[in-house]
């Protein structure tokens, strides 16, 4: 069981580290969001998985209820991280686009075009 | 006993002071109170400004900024220094506070 915990933890930490590297490497806010929020989500899932496994294993061997509390709360935490993280990324991206921060090196920006068309249509 | 206070080198009693004040007042009044008073009449209240019309009453009042003009003029160097200290910028308030604290630190740790 120890091996599973270690592997999960290592995967999680690796992806978290990659997320921070992405923050340095990518040029603008949208691409950084890809790395910073989603890679870390994936990393967090695996680190939490390590915690969950650890909790259930210790509960099985020790019988002390505090480990199962740990595991259950970790499950609740990971569920809510999964639900809220993409929403926050979406909210940040939307706010950035509304503050007219355009994506760098973009080949096409259909949202911008559509908004422009809507604005022109509105003024006519 | 309720009215005495002792200051270490003497005492103070407001009742005595009041009593003496009243006595002196009566004394002074009895001497000078019998002088003939001028009769009040509305004409006499009007100021005589060497023939000019009386100006607006608002302008007659000495403005508060002009009272003690001589004093502030005489001490203008001091007041310029004070004005430089009272800048009204919040950062300077904190600078003064911290400066006093640092000076006190130095004074107290070396003392």
């Amino acid at each position, binding site marked *: 069981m120890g091996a599973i915990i270690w592997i999960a933890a290592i995967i999680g930490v690796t992806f978290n580290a990659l997320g921070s590297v992405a923050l340095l490497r990518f040029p603008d806010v949208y691409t950084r969001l890809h790395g910073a929020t989603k890679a870390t989500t994936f990393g967090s899932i695996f680190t939490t998985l390590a915690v969950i496994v650890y909790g259930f294993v210790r509960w099985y061997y020790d019988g002390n209820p505090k480990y199962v*509390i740990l595991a259950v709360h970790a499950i609740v935490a990971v569920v809510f991280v999964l639900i809220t993280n993409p929403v926050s990324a979406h909210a940040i991206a939307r706010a950035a686009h509304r503050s007219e921060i355009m994506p760098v090196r973009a080949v096409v920006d259909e949202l911008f075009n559509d908004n422009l068309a809507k604005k022109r249509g509105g003024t006519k | 006993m309720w009215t005495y206070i002792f200051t270490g080198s003497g005492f103070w009693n407001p009742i005595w002071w009041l009593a003496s004040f009243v006595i002196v007042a009566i004394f002074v009044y009895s001497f000078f109170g019998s002088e003939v008073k001028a009769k009040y009449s509305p004409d006499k209240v009007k100021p005589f400004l060497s023939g000019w019309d009386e100006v607006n009453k608002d302008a007659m009042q000495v403005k508060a900024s002009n009272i003690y003009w001589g004093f502030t003029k005489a001490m203008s160097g001091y007041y310029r220094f004070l004005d430089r200290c009272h*800048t009204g*910028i*919040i950062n300077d308030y904190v600078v003064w506070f911290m400066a006093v604290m640092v000076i006190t630190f130095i004074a107290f740790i070396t003392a």
Partner: protein
Amino acid sequence: MFYDIHYVTIVFLIALGIYAVMFQHNLIKIAIGIDILESGANLLLIVLGYRNGGVAPIFTMAPQGKSMVLPTPQALTLTAIVIGLATTALMLSLIVMLYRHYGTLDTREIRRLRG
């Protein structure tokens, strides 16, 4: 004299907050400086109460045979945090009103009261 990274951090935070309030002319930055100052004071209380190898002073399913850290600073810090929250809330609303009146966030222009 034995310097420890925790103590240096505390003093650094306090000096940083004072620096922000003394040098910055933006009201929001001043508010941030005061918050940093508060964090320094809270960290001081917590650090003073640490005991080597101690666990949180809660008996519910605590680990066996470990000493507990001092509980009083934690209670004091709770109080100090709430006080900091209250101060920050009021400060930010005053900044909003100041901006409404003066149209600027620069302290050098918000000086109607002087002399």
